[in-house]
């Protein structure tokens, strides 16, 4: 129902404005028809605009503390009101969700996802593949997106892989399950790109087949050089266009330079139009990238993984760079040996904008628990820990004006839990994205039987048809040998 909102809005607005001058003098019958139509549309509109009130829950706003016995009014795609029960009015016709004993928190933001990508997440062939775009290959048929909603995750940065120093352009999405994939990207979100440092881009974990040439770079020095070269080339490219524009202005008719979508990407990074999210582990390579960004004049928005971030947290903070990390994954490869679970708390305390993220379709379903662990490892407060999987990620994605906390005017991406989200016993009951229920546990349980029946029916239909067609098929189509 909510989906019809967009289509109806202009109509209802027009009707609300009252009869236009053009309608004056029209026949009474026509007027009556119009009136009836208007009434009908108005009725539709009220259903489309239908408000939802989540009543009497413990609300973890993340931005302004915990509200016991609180209510949230969702109107359209936005949060219209939040506060103690007596301060939030229930409008007539609103759907009221009785959430006594339940907890509501903002949708979890995962700043490192590879969910919802068709085909390889790596364009592995070249050291710099900044021309490729995740948004070209998003798929709304990846069931992991739905499973992540069932774990309270509503928004993600879908990244290119880490096989090369400069990977592809990444995409910020909301898991709008059931919607066309064209509606998944967050429309006004910044463009992003993946960089990668360390073992992966120097091919330690991605070897070309034996007997074929190795891929440049093979060392951390080489990784640095690939990135430096890319920006150097980009500046040359921009200079060529500047020269072309200047000649054109002088009235000449020069041949334009060749448009190069990779070089355009690199220049968009330099212009601040594309945010860099860089995969990294070790302190030395982190420092390298920070210095390189100063040297070349580009901005790093977020360091990804950043497992040795605690060693250089002050420097990271001084650069205004965020860190998205794992809470307790360590030792899984050489460059993760110095990882410690206190990384999150240490970076956070040093002033680094820190989040926990998943890099995994599975972990993405329980980032709430990874955030909770930061209370144990380093003693963050509950609200500080909650921020790790919500508001801080939203800030790293530069979307905190829209998501990451329960505040009036923000997108209605909220999750109702049957207990505190930091308890391993808690489950998600309902997940809203843009005001629409995209996961509901009761509904899910109910549809399972229907889906099992549909499957059985389809298989039976198929088997029956095969039986019907088989004998004749053998007799007539002997020339076919497909099977």
């Amino acid at each position, binding site marked *: 129902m909510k989906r019809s909102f967009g289509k109806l809005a202009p109509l209802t607005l027009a009707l609300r404005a009252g009869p236009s001058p053009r309608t004056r003098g029209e026949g009474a019958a026509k007027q009556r028809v119009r009136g009836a139509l208007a009434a009908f549309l108005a009725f539709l509109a009220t259903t489309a605009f239908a408000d939802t009130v989540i009543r009497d829950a413990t609300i973890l706003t993340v931005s302004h503390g915990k509200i016991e016995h609180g209510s949230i009014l969702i109107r359209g795609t936005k949060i219209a009101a939040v506060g103690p029960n007596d301060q939030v009015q229930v409008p007539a016709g609103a759907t009221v969700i009785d959430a006594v004993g339940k907890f509501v928190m903002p949708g979890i933001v995962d700043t490192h996802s590879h969910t919802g990508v068709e*085909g390889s997440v790596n364009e592995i062939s070249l050291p710099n593949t900044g021309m490729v775009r995740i948004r070209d290959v998003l798929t709304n048929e990846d069931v992991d997106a739905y499973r992540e909603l069932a774990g309270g995750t509503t928004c993600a940065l879908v990244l290119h892989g880490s096989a090369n120093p400069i990977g592809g352009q990444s995409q910020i999405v909301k898991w709008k399950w059931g919607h066309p994939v064209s509606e998944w990207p967050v429309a006004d979100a910044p463009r992003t790109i993946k960089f990668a440092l360390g073992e992966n881009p120097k091919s330690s974990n991605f070897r070309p087949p034996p007997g074929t040439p190795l891929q440049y770079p093979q060392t951390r020095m080489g990784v640095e050089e690939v990135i430096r070269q890319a920006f150097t080339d980009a500046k040359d490219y921009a200079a060529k266009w500047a020269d072309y524009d200047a000649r054109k202005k002088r009235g000449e008719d020069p041949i334009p330079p060749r448009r190069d979508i990779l070089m355009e990407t690199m220049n968009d990074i330099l212009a601040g139009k594309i945010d860099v999210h860089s995969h990294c582990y070790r302190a030395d390579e982190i420092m390298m990238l920070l210095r390189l960004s100063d040297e070349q004049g580009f901005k790093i928005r977020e360091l990804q993984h950043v497992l040795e971030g605690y060693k250089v947290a002050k420097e990271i903070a001084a650069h205004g760079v965020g860190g998205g990390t794992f809470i307790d994954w360590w030792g899984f490869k050489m460059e993760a040996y110095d990882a410690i679970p206190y990384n999150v708390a240490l970076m956070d305390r040093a002033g680094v904008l820190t989040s926990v993220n998943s890099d995994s379709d599975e972990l993405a379903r329980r980032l709430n628990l990874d955030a909770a662990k930061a209370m144990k490892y380093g003693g963050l407060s509950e609200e500080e820990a909650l921020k790790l999987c919500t508001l801080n990620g939203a800030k790293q994605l530069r979307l905190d004006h829209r998501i990451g906390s329960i505040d009036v005017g923000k997108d209605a991406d909220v999750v109702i839990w049957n207990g505190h989200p930091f308890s391993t016993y808690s489950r998600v009951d309902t997940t809203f994205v843009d005001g629409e229920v995209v996961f509901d546990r009761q509904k899910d349980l109910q549809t399972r039987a229907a889906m099992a029946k549909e499957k059985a029916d389809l298989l039976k239909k*198929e088997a029956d048809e095969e039986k019907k067609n088989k004998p004749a098929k053998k007799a007539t189509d002997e020339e076919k040998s497909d099977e």
Partner: protein
Amino acid sequence: MKLRRFLIGIALFALYAPLLADAPGVYAIAGGTVHPVSGPAIENGVVIVRDGLIEAVGANVAVPADATVVDAKGKHVYPGLIDAQTSLGFPSATPPRRGRGAPATRPQSAATELPQTSPEFLAMHEVKLTDDDMDAKRATGVTTILTAPSFGIFNGQSVVLDLGGGTMEQRIVRGVAAQQISFNPRAAWTYPDSLMGVISYIRQSLLDGQHYAAAHAIYDKNPAGNQRPGESPSAVALGAVLRRDVPVVFIADSELMMRRAMAIAREFNLKTILSGARQAYRMPNDLKDVPVLVSVKWATAPAAKEDREEQPLRVIRDRVLSPTSPAALQKSGATYALVSGPGKTGDFIPGIRKAIDNGLSADDALRAVTLSPARILGVDRQLGSLDKGKIANVVVTDKPIFEKDAKVQRVYVDGREMKLPTEEDRARGRGTAAAGPLDGSWGLIVKASTGDVNINARFHVEDGKVIGTFSGDRGSGDIRNGTFDGTTLEFTIGVKATAEQEDWVFHGTLSGTTISGTVSTTLGTLPFSGSKSR
């Protein structure tokens, strides 16, 4: 002596006359139910064929005195079917790189032109149709095909051919039908090796096509003081596409791939045809503005019941619903045709039948393999219906063509009657009775120092020349420089050895259904043996 030679001559002529079919005759195909497609069926109708064209069609048409009368009483007469998407006459895998080994170093930037697959590739120059290919196709009532390779990204410029006699040049109906693009990533470590890379590659190539045109326009106007822009056959070919002179056929099966193709088409304002389209049932109303070639190579269920039950609902649902795509497109008013699809030839007629079982009327199905594809390919003024003046591609069947046990009994292509494979030929799975001892599939084993190398080869002998394809442990591709004199066989294949691409030259002797001999390789001479499959 002279008389005997003369008699033998006559006997031979009588034997081979139907094969030669040198001159188009005058035929009156009379008495059958004529389905012109452009109009309603005509009971007891007559189709007059003269000089390769249709002279007349109707119920009360006088049979010319010079016509050979073909009695079609109780039979059905159709325009030859058009299969508007095939890869007939091309190997199914990427052919080996010719003469060059793998590069010693990896490229550091994206090359704009890829080997083996390029927009300038002309299918009409490279297609190698065997008699088997054409016989098998004609036996299903298909007289016209579109073909292009299925490998690579820019598959090249497809050709529309009549499956008639004569030379390849004589068969061509439209030399450049469309530019064909497939979303095929290349092998890992070669740009582009991911789907997103393929899309970027296509976009950059089209931008290069735009740049080429712009640069040349400026340079031609004023060469003095400007750098010479250089030549690019690929950009020239894409120029025709960007000017909308040549349509693009995007091979795209799923809803998402079709939408991705349409996004590229919008970005570059291309004249677009979608091909594959097996998920068209999910978006029939979004396909009203773009012609669609629906591949009837429907997905097949796993044989074992347990395997089926293990599949997710969405896979099963898609498999069951995709054959409803043609009916859904018919209902939405889209322009569509039914085709085999690129790659291996599948069950064309059974595939169409499945679409009919899933809600398409037989009349609509017929139009979707005659007049509709002719229109989509821009050849409807000469093909697609039984109308005066059109090319005389005519098919006669014993029953309505899509009925389960219907048989194609006569086929005319360009006004010539074509010999149909006999039941015996079909039973042997081959097209013509002329198949020699080498024709067919062979399993070859090369004894290398590192162990046996298995290669499957398919040979076809024509005038002492061996053509065919191979695949196996060391890659796949075409048989080259093949000769066969009845006992001695020689041919070359390009194989993937350790790091390099190299040629292996086979010399063998045939005895019955086995071959043995030697292979010349860069590592020396190796023994090989082989036996005929099946």
